[in-house]
């Protein structure tokens, strides 16, 4: 018994790997994002997760209580960000939905019904498997069912911007990949790709000076040499970057009130972002 007690005391004194990992970042726990989430959690989450009994009086335990464990970190990462990088977020929504939903209640809440629901794949999951054509887009599987047209009023400006994004993205990617293929064939004599590999550890401005002998200033350095596939790839990238500006210009006539003012401000900001290097030399070689 005595040995066991001593053993337990030693165990309490020594930090576990998890605790060590947790303690590694105490500096940031009190900063910007941490208190924010705590505060907001209080406002919005009715049902707090059950943390279990917590020993007090031990600094390490307190720190552990504040900082997330690796498990919590992994759990939290999944739901929120699954929508990124083209991930379908349908599965997460359908699986986790019944956990927390203060306002909206599903129609059936009986136990058997819930179990059957759990066993059967959701519409999203079925659609995911059945319709690979749409998997390129995050929420695609849920799309083309007739039910989606029910009572959802999509404002014209949203449709316009969606169309502009799709068109610009397609054009930009085609230009990038088409001229990318030409660039990688090495047919253009001005492109010395081996030299680029040897110099790519230099800052951008120095790199272009050493590789192509051009001074990077604004956009003329790639716009003026459009016969070079390398420049064309960069032009393709510029097409992608033009998307919001083109979208805003199309949306402004269709919008009204404060939204129109906001769109005009966004347009001005984009024009500034694009023209800034041409009108002033601020920010590196701007």
């Amino acid at each position, binding site marked *: 018994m005595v040995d066991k007690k001593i053993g337990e005391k030693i165990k309490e004194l020594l930090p576990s790997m998890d605790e060590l990992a947790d303690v590694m970042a105490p500096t940031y726990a009190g900063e910007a994002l941490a208190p924010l989430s705590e505060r907001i959690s209080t406002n919005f989450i009715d049902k707090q997760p059950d943390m279990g009994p917590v020993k007090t009086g031990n600094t390490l335990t307190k720190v552990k209580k504040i900082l997330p464990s690796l498990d919590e970190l992994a759990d939290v990462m999944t739901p929120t960000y699954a929508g990124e990088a083209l991930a379908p977020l349908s599965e997460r929504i359908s699986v986790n939905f019944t956990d927390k939903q203060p306002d909206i209640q599903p129609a059936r809440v009986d136990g058997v019904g819930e179990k059957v629901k759990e066993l059967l794949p959701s519409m999203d999951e079925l659609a995911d498997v059945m319709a690979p054509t749409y998997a390129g887009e995050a929420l695609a599987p849920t799309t083309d069912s007739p039910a989606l047209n029910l009572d*959802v009023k999509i404002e014209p400006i*949203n449709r316009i911007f969606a169309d502009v994004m799709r068109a610009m993205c397609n054009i930009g990617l085609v230009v990038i990949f088409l001229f990318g293929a030409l660039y990688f064939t090495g047919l253009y004599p001005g492109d010395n790709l081996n030299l680029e590999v040897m110099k790519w550890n230099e800052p951008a401005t120095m790199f272009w000076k050493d590789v192509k002998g051009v001074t990077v200033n604004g956009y003329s350095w790639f716009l003026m040499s459009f016969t070079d596939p390398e420049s064309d790839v960069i032009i393709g990238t510029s097409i992608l970057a033009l998307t919001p500006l083109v979208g805003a210009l199309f949306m402004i006539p269709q919008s009204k009130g404060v939204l129109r003012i906001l769109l005009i401000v*966004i347009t001005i900001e984009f024009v500034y972002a694009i023209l800034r290097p041409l009108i002033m030399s601020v920010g590196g070689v701007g």
Partner: protein
Amino acid sequence: MGTKISIPVVAIVTLILVLCGVIFWGIFAGGHLTLLLWQKWAILIFLFTLVIGVIGPLSGVGGGVIFVGLGMAILPFHVDFIRGAGLVAALTTSLNSAPHFTKKGLSSMKVVAPLVVVSTIFSVVGGIVGLWVSNTFPQGSSYVKISLGVVLLLMLVALGTSKNVEYPKVKKNDKLSEILGIRGSWYEPTLNQVVEYRVTNLPIAMVIFAGVGFIAGMFGLGAGWANVPILNLVMGVPLKASVATSMLILAINDSASLWVYLANGAVLPLIVVPTVLGIGIGSRIGSRLAVRTKPKVIKYLVIGLIGISAIVNILQGLMGIGWINI
């Protein structure tokens, strides 16, 4: 039902066929394939970003964040080019997804407009500051690496401390969002009903988005990891709509800061093309796999990779400015 073939798919398939053709030509013409230095690197970058693209959706973190963090730590390119490529990859990813979300009502310009008015200008400023630091100071790259390491650590803490809510309760709009009339709705098939939502705390969110925009522009990160909790927990936007709205915000913010990188020569096609291709294809494979399985080991792996990237970046930065000598 007819089969839809999008232009990017055709372009990607064409490129892959061309690459395969070049490789086969090399094999049959010369009897063996001798790769030049740049060819080895192009293939390496493609495979590297392909793997990142696959594990991104499986872990729930955007591929761009892993690429920039890990890339700065282990790849030999200058930080300017890594940030430029990361930004282009994040932009193409969001431009691919956002139209779909927007057409279904999951993301709305009414919600996005007041936020991007602030974040756009700050992402431009972030891009200017980031490139100014790396180009002006002799140890500029080291400063960028240290600050990126700190941001990555902050990101891990933010991920761990924010517990997102599927449908947050918003009792009352704040005055500003009331004036702007910010509301949203979409059809939720799992409920078979239209979900309507309204937002709150818009002024606070605008201030936070300014900081997020700055960080995204400075490091070439997508910053969806910050956008989603702000939208969900601060503004009370439902989780599904938060992810969609975040995509739309990224599409606008990243475009704005990309102009700074373009004007400073920080977009290098030799890195950008394989990166966009690798992350694009990888994320599609990853998103398919994520529907069926989300192995926890991948999440641990990505947490570990981001944590290690953060520490390596900080150590490299500190060595670069001569504070430590390992």
